[in-house]
C-alpha cells in the first residue's frame, strides 16, 4: 500500500485519481458524459482528464442520458471499458430502460457470451442544498435489478479503491458517489478493495448501526455521542449494496443483539427493509429487539431549507437506539 505525499485528499480528488490511474493502467478505459471534458464535470471528478489523456479517452457527449448509456453498452460489447457519468442522481432516470433491459441483462440474455464491464457513476443523495431533482437517493431502483453491482464509498480511501475495483469488474457497476462527502478529506492510501465486502468502521458491543455512503459519518458521530449514554455501538459501512455482505452484518448483529439501519433514501420498500428482513431471518434468536430503521421520510426530496428535517440525524439515530428494548434484556 502506497501512501501519497499530501496530507489531505478530498473524496473528489481520490475519485479523480482513480479515474486517472485506470486510464493509465488500461487503454480500454474510456470516460464520457455531460460536461466531463473541458469543464472536468460539475463536481470536477474528471478534472484534467481530457487535457492529459486526450479526447479519445475522456469526452463530452450530447445531453442525453439514454444515449450515453446506450452507446456505452455498444462500446463495452466491442471491447472497451466505459466509465460514464450521470450528472446527478435524478438525471440518470432517462437511462433507466437501457440500464434495466440491457446493462443488467446482457450477460444473462446471452448466457455469458456478451458481458458488459462498464461503470455508471452517479453523484447521489442530499445535504448540499441542491434544488429539486439534485438530491435523490436512488439506490433502491438499482439494487432491485438483478445483474447490477451497486457500490457506494463513504471514505476517501474507499472512493479510490472501490472505483478502481468497479472499473476492473467484469460486471456492470452502479457507483453511487455521496456528493455531500465529495469535499471530505483524509490522508489517502492508494489501496485495493473487493466489491461485496462490508467494513466494520467502529467496533462495539451494545448495538450495530448499519449504514452506507452519506450516512456512515452520521452513524459514527452517533456512536461517539452514544458513549455518554453508556452504549458501545458498532458501525458497519456496507460499501457494497449488491453483493450484500450478509456475513459481516449478521456476525455483528449476533454479537450485539440489536441493530439500526440508517439510510437517507425514503424508508418504504427501501434497502433498509431488505437488510432488516434478511438479518431478522438469519439472527432472530440473537435479537433482543426488532431491527429499527432511520431513513428519510416517504416524501419527494425536500427543498433545501427543509432538507435537514428529512435527513437521518445523530439525534434520530440515538432515539432509535434508545427504542431497542434495553430494559427487557
Amino acid at each position, binding site marked *: 500500500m502506497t501512501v501519497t505525499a499530501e496530507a489531505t485528499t478530498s473524496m473528489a480528488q481520490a475519485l479523480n485519481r482513480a479515474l486517472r490511474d485506470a486510464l493509465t493502467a488500461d487503454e480500454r478505459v474510456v470516460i464520457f458524459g455531460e460536461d466531463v471534458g473541458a469543464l472536468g464535470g460539475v463536481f470536477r471528478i474528471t478534472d484534467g482528464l481530457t487535457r492529459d489523456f486526450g479526447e*479519445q479517452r475522456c469526452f463530452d457527449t450530447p445531453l442525453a442520458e439514454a*444515449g450515453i448509456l*446506450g*452507446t456505452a*453498452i*455498444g462500446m463495452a460489447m466491442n471491447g472497451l471499458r466505459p466509465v460514464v457519468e450521470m450528472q446527478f442522481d435524478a438525471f440518470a432516470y432517462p437511462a433507466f430502460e437501457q440500464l434495466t433491459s*440491457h446493462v443488467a441483462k446482457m*450477460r444473462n440474455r446471452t448466457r455469458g457470451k456478451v*458481458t458488459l464491464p462498464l461503470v455508471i457513476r452517479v453523484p447521489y443523495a442530499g445535504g448540499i442544498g441542491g434544488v429539486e431533482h439534485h438530491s435523490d437517493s436512488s439506490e433502491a431502483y438499482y439494487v432491485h435489478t438483478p445483474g447490477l453491482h451497486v457500490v457506494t464509498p463513504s471514505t476517501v480511501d474507499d472512493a479510490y479503491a472501490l472505483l478502481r475495483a468497479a472499473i476492473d469488474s467484469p460486471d456492470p457497476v452502479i457507483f453511487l458517489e455521496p456528493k455531500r462527502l465529495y469535499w471530505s478529506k483524509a490522508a489517502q492510501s492508494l489501496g485495493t478493495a473487493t466489491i461485496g465486502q462490508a467494513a466494520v468502521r467502529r467496533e462495539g458491543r451494545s448495538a450495530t448501526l448499519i449504514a452506507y455512503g452519506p450516512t456512515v459519518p452520521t452513524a459514527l458521530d452517533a456512536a461517539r455521542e452514544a458513549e455518554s449514554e453508556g452504549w458501545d455501538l458498532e458501525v458497519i459501512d456496507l460499501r457494497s449494496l449488491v453483493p*450484500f455482505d450478509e456475513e459481516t452484518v449478521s456476525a455483528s448483529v449476533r454479537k450485539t443483539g440489536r441493530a439500526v439501519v440508517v439510510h437517507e433514501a425514503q424508508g418504504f420498500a427501501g434497502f433498509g427493509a431488505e437488510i432488516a428482513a434478511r438479518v431478522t431471518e438469519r439472527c432472530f434468536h440473537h435479537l433482543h429487539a426488532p431491527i429499527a430503521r432511520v431513513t428519510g421520510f416517504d416524501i419527494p426530496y425536500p427543498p433545501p431549507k427543509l432538507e435537514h428535517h428529512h435527513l437521518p440525524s445523530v439525534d434520530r439515530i440515538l432515539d432509535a437506539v434508545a427504542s431497542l428494548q434495553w430494559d427487557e434484556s
Partner: protein
Amino acid sequence: MTSTPFVEAPATHPLLPGPIPLRFVDEDGHTVGDPTRRLPEPSLLRELYRRLVVGRRFDKQATALTKQGRLAVYPSSHGQEACQVGAVLALRPTDWLFPTYRESVALVTRDIDPVDVLTLLRGDWHCGYDPYAHAAAPQCTPLATQTLHAVGFAQAGRVKGEDTVTLAFAGDGATSEGDFHEALNFAAVFNAPTVFLVQNNGYAISVPLSRQSKAPTLAHKAIGYGIPGVVVDGNDVVAVYTAVRDAAERARRGNGPTLIEAMTYRLDAHTNADDATRYRSDDEVERWRRADPLARFERYLRHEGVLDDAAVAEVAAEAERFAADLRDRMNAEPALDPADLFAHVYAEPTPQLREQAAQLAEELQ
C-alpha cells in the same frame, strides 16, 4: 411593418431523400430509372434470389411451428424479406447487425443456425446464438434501444482502428422512440460508421404511420441530424442492397451515418397473436401482395435470363430441405438446465444467488 427579405430555399438539399424511392425493378419485374445504372453481377443476383427464397421458406416454417405450439410467438417477416436479405448481403460478414425481433430472416441470411435464431421464441433461453461468432447482437425487443448499441459499437471500432460498420434495424413505430432520436444524433455528432435501416411497413402493430409521424417521409428526419436520408423501395431487393452497400461504404470511408427508409409491408399479421383484419383492409393487403418482393424479382431474373426453370426448382428444393431440417430439429425437445438461471447473472454468483440456486436444486431432487 417591413416585410422580411425572403430567400427562396432550394427545392432539394443533398441530405434530403429524392422525390421518389430508389428502385431498380418494378412490380412487373422490369427495370426502371436511369438505364445506364448498373445492376449487380448475375452471380450476386442469383444469391439474392436464393436467400429470398430460403428466407421466405424459413419464415413460413416458423409461422407453422407457432401454429403447432412449438414457438411461443413469431413476428413474421413475410413481405419484408427483401429489406433483410438485401441489407445483410450488402455488408461484410464482419459488419455487425443490431436486429429487432422481426429480423429473423436477416439472421438466417447471416448463416446463423435457424434453431439458434428461434431459441428466443421457443422459450428455451433469450438469445440462442453467439453474437461474436456471427457479428450479430441479440434480437432486441425494447424498441430502438439497440440502435444506440450499434452506434457505440461502431464508435469503439473506430477507436480500435477497425473499419467495421454497424447496421441498426428499426421499424416505423420505433422511430417515435427517444432512443431512435438519440442514436441518430450520437451517430451524427461522433461520425459513427452506422447505417440505420427503417423498415416502414406502415403499421406499429395496429397503429398506422400517420400516428407516428407527420414528416413527409421518415428519411426526412435525417436532415435534422445533419446526415443523409434515403428512401428506397423496400420490396426491391436490388434497391435495398444498393442503398445499404453505398451507405456502408460511405460510413467505412469515415463519412458517417446514413438513415435509410425502406418502404415495405408486412403481409402477415404482427404475430400469430394479432388480428390484422381489425386495422387494415383486404384490398390494401392484396395491393401489396402484387408488389411481392420475391415474385417481382423472380420475374425480372427470368426475363433477364439469369434464372430458368431448373435454377428455380433447384433453389426451391434447397429451401424445402432447409425447412424440413428446421422442422425436424425443432421437434426435438432440448434439455434445459435450471442451474443456468443463476449461472449468468454475474461473473460470480452473489452469496444470495448461491443460496437460491441450492434451494432450486434441492427442490428438483
